[in-house]
């Protein structure tokens, strides 16, 4: 059975940007619905720890607490566990609900749409990258927050971006031995970035705090993983090969967390036909996309982090409610400077293109190896001839990798954006009752207040 909901403002994503947008619009009288793929709001950066850990390692995060409290006090209706697979600019979004036994389709009609779809990690292929024991950086952190215990494990954290230090500190606090952080960016670029943060001392202080909880960890800049090595009996990780470009050495470890900064989740914006500026959704000073009733906030407009996401969300929410956002302009511009700094500091080095061997798997869903890709040029050709990007992740993992390795921009986004059961797609349209909506909302709101 499927259901329909009608709202004035629909927000896609309940991370910091989406929460700020929904709260601002709802506090100014708009009817707001928020959809999120996860079971709880907060997105990736404010991801909940598992209830198994309450009272032990969970750190009080007042910025998050305040944002969530305001969201729950507002009239915004949060619908978690929803996977959006279709959207059209004439005012309709379709999603499946994970919790429903029959994974029914929900159709949500909107006047204004705010895209707050966040970012994912960029994964680059290297020999051994598909071994169990190799995770993303944010990936390992998310799994630890979901109950995976890593106490006593030897971990190497590698890749690039500010996440490396933050996650390494988190893993160390959870009892792991983080032997090395391998940051591919060269020291000089990072030093320049750190120096540029003098106007934003809180960001600098945060980095220093992370570093101080990692006293026994080697933080190597200009250093990257060239290979993950399996144990002699086969399928578990036993070590990684690291290089600084001159010297290569082996570092024994149980787990590798490796991610190369972030790529924006822009599939819904592409499907809607929003204009792009390079990899990012183009927005004006009011966060409006090229389609007048569609706004975009946070990472899809440029990787700029938490503070940018919050202020951009607020701007879009207020715009949907017809309020002035002039007073927020200064904060928006300040965070744009931070975004530029991130981009300069954590750009990928050319050597990373040479990591895959001919037999290295690039597309994990279809086991497509690097050698088969080199023969083709266009993304559509690559898909048709090799099945790269044709699996259930729909190119979300291999797409950015192929783009970096072969300079070939993944194209042709179309619905369904996620795999959907045919049974759900075929389900009849039946309106959802008011009672049901209230029950869902109360459930999601009380569950949070543990």
């Amino acid at each position, binding site marked *: 059975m499927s259901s329909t909901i009608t709202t004035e403002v629909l927000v896609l994503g309940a991370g910091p940007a989406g929460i700020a947008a929904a709260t601002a619009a709802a506090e100014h009288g708009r009817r707001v619905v928020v959809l999120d*793929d*996860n*079971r709880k709001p907060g997105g*990736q950066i404010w991801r909940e720890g*598992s*209830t*198994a*850990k*309450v*009272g032990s390692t969970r750190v009080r995060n007042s910025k998050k607490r305040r944002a969530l409290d305001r969201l729950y006090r507002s009239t915004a209706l949060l619908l978690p*566990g929803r*996977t959006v697979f279709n959207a059209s600019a004439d005012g309709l979004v379709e999603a499946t609900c*994970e919790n429903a036994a029959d994974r029914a389709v929900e159709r949500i009609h909107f006047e204004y749409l705010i895209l707050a779809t966040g970012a*994912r*990690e960029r*994964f680059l292929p290297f020999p051994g990258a*598909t071994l*169990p*024991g*190799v*995770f*993303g950086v*944010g*990936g*390992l*952190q*998310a*799994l*630890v927050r*979901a*109950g*995976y*215990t890593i106490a006593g494990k030897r971990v190497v954290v590698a890749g690039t971006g500010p996440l490396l230090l933050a996650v390494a500190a988190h893993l160390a606090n959870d009892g792991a031995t983080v032997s090395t952080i391998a940051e591919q960016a060269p020291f000089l670029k990072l030093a320049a970035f750190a120096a540029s943060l003098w106007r934003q001392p809180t960001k600098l202080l945060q980095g220093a705090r992370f570093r101080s909880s990692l006293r026994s960890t080697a933080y190597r800049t200009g250093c990257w993983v060239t290979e993950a090595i399996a144990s002699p009996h086969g*399928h578990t990780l036993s070590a990684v090969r690291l290089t600084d470009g001159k010297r290569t050495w082996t570092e024994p470890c149980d787990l590798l967390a490796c991610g190369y900064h972030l790529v924006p989740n822009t599939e819904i914006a592409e499907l809607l036909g929003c204009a792009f500026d390079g990899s990012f959704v183009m927005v004006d000073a009011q966060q409006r996309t090229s389609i007048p009733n569609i706004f975009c906030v946070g990472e899809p407009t440029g990787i700029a982090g938490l503070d940018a996401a919050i202020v951009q969300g607020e701007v879009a929410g207020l715009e949907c409610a017809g309020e002035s956002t002039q007073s927020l302009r200064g904060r928006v511009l300040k965070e744009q400077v931070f975004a530029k700094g991130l981009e300069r500091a954590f750009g990928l080095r050319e050597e990373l293109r040479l990591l895959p061997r001919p037999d290295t*798997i690039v597309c*994990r*869903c*279809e*086991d497509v190896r690097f050698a088969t890709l080199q023969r083709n040029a266009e993304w559509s050709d690559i898909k048709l001839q090799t099945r790269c990007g044709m*699996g*259930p*992740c729909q190119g*979300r*993992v291999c797409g950015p990798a192929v783009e970096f390795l072969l300079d070939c921009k993944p194209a042709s986004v179309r619905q369904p954006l996620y*795999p959907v059961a045919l049974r759900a797609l075929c389900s009849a349209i039946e309106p959802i009752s008011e009672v049901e909506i209230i029950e869902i909302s109360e459930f999601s709101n*009380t*569950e949070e*207040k*543990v």
Partner: protein
Amino acid sequence: MLKTLTAQTHSLHINGATFEVASGTSVAAALLLAGQPSRFSVGGEPRAALCGMGICFECRAVVNGVPHQRTCQLLCEDGMTMETNR
């Protein structure tokens, strides 16, 4: 409704074997704790969770008989069954 904070556990069946996890553990985390891959790739390689956020589909498994479940987005429940061999 307030959740109790006492250490509750759930009993799961992973490929037929019984396994206990703390309440609040995701299915993907349970598979990692049990040392089980979540699936085997089309080329026969064992795979485990990668992104932890519902993007990569590497953690998908058969949960309670339903195939292709993203286990990182599911919480463990008492008596849940998981099959990772297909």
